[in-house]
């Protein structure tokens, strides 16, 4: 693998670590199996690409895309909390709805960003290649997101949010407005995913209606890979693990795609991911079975 491919994998890995952090919040902290992600990722991309190609400042566009993701998350939460639709189903409904909404936003199946400014080109110094700058900038963004999450989840409100996911009945008995916590958590989760989508569109030369397919599985894969590499219940370690998981996962994919002897092609990616997640889900159970006692 060349340095170029390596940095490319790192770049995408970093973007998907934002998705993975979002998935960690919904699946692990809130225990809300949220598939909205498959819609909010392209939503972020669609909003950012459309705004930028209409001449909006790329930073403003990225922020608007992030907010759009948050709104999508809130609607999924609302379908579940207020309309009492089962969590998984609520998120599938939202995902489906977003497909149409994304097409509406873009007005066509894809919006290219070729010569338009992006947050990356705006910060590009003369002396540095773009494929070096992008991962560097993304490292800063991802670390900032991680630190903000670590901080938030140790505050009074953040703790109440974690309690809601862990034991909602107890949380309510402690005076926590659990419905509001779910909405807030879903907003946070999908805001990260929307941001990831916006950044993805700006690094990959545009937004595409199908860019979201399999996002949730990639996010979950990252969470699971991270958790098996670095098992910990401490939040600041768990967020590190999730980020590392996303990057490691991406390197594996790059390796698989770049090794001629394996013969994998880009379209096999989702299959590989699905297999990987299946293995990661089954292995701990098998290990449990072999060792004959319950783990953790």
């Amino acid at each position, binding site marked *: 693998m060349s340095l170029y491919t390596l940095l490319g994998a790192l770049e995408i890995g970093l973007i998907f670590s934002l998705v993975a952090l979002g998935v960690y919040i919904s699946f692990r902290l809130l225990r809300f199996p949220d598939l909205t992600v498959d819609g909010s990722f392209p939503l972020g991309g669609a909003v950012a690409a459309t705004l930028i190609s209409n001449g909006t400042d790329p930073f403003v566009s990225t922020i608007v895309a992030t907010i759009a993701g948050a709104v999508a998350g809130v609607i999924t939460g609302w379908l579940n909390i207020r309309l009492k639709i089962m969590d998984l189903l609520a998120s599938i409904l939202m995902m489906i709805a977003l497909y149409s909404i994304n097409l509406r936003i873009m007005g066509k199946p894809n919006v290219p960003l070729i010569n338009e400014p992006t947050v990356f080109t705006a910060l590009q110094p003369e002396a540095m290649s773009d494929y070096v700058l992008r991962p560097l900038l993304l490292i800063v963004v991802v670390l900032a997101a991680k630190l903000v999450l670590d901080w*938030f989840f*140790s*505050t*009074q*409100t*953040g*703790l*109440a949010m*974690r*309690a809601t*996911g*862990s*034991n909602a*009945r*107890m*949380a*309510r*008995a*402690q*005076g*926590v*407005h*659990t419905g509001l916590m779910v909405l807030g958590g879903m907003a946070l989760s999908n805001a990260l995913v929307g941001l990831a989508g916006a950044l993805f569109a700006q690094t990959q030369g545009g937004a595409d209606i199908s860019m979201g397919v399999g996002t949730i599985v990639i996010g979950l894969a990252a969470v699971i890979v991270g958790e098996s590499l670095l098992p910990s*219940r401490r939040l600041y370690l768990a967020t590190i693990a999730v980020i590392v998981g996303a990057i490691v996962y991406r390197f594996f994919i790059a390796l698989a795609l770049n090794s001629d002897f394996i013969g994998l092609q880009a379209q096999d990616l989702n299959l590989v991911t699905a297999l990987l997640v299946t293995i990661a889900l089954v292995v701990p159970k098998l290990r449990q079975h072999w060792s004959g006692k319950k783990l953790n």
Partner: protein
Amino acid sequence: MLRAQDLHITFNPGTPIETRALRGMSLDIPSGQFVTVIGSNGAGKSTFLNAVSGEMKVDSGRIEIDGIDMTRQPVWERARHVARVFQDPMAGTCEDLTIEENMALATLRGQRRGLGWAVKPALREEFRAQLSTLGLGLENRLSDRIGLLSGGQRQAVSLLMAALRPSRLLLLDEHTAALDPRTADFVLQLTVRIVAEHKLTTMMVTHSMRQALDVGERTVMLHQGKVVLDVSGDERKGMTVKDLLTMFERVRGEQIDDDALLLG
């Protein structure tokens, strides 16, 4: 004080499995009183406590605490005034959170939660001091996940948590039932101590007639969704478990007679 007036709750109304869990349940508890609640399985004890805490909506009736109408308030709003310990030790704590995080959650029961640190050093010291009164060595395990503790230990911590913040009413639903006899006794003694220390208005459900008479200052018996027996003061002082059982049987007998009359 708690004032529950003519509460009715019917589960699955209009179906073959209709259950009238509360049928005109009324009870007043003056501030500072410790009431024990007994009654056979299905009498409606848990349903009553759930109605008071807000976990179950009443079909009709009124619930007031210190003159504030709570009947329509959701659980999380009532939590400002009502503290509770559940029967299941797993239910009252968050197993994924640490001991100190669980306690931090309870220090803000019913309060506004902001963006300040949940666990601060001063708070941690307070928790340590509180935990050391239990004599279980938990003061050295503040950052352990609470899921690692035994049921009895979790129940003891739940009790401490219930008292971390002042409340107008403490609800205990068979909170020692899942524990072995020695631990159950320990938790009961702890309950008596904490209730006395904080002068808490308390309602404790128990299946042990002995316990019901030994602790607290008033005992009420529920049967078919309402109070059928209410003893306190001198009458209660002289009472033995046997007396209570006799009264219990008599009440049930009468009830059966009533039903027989109605059906006949």
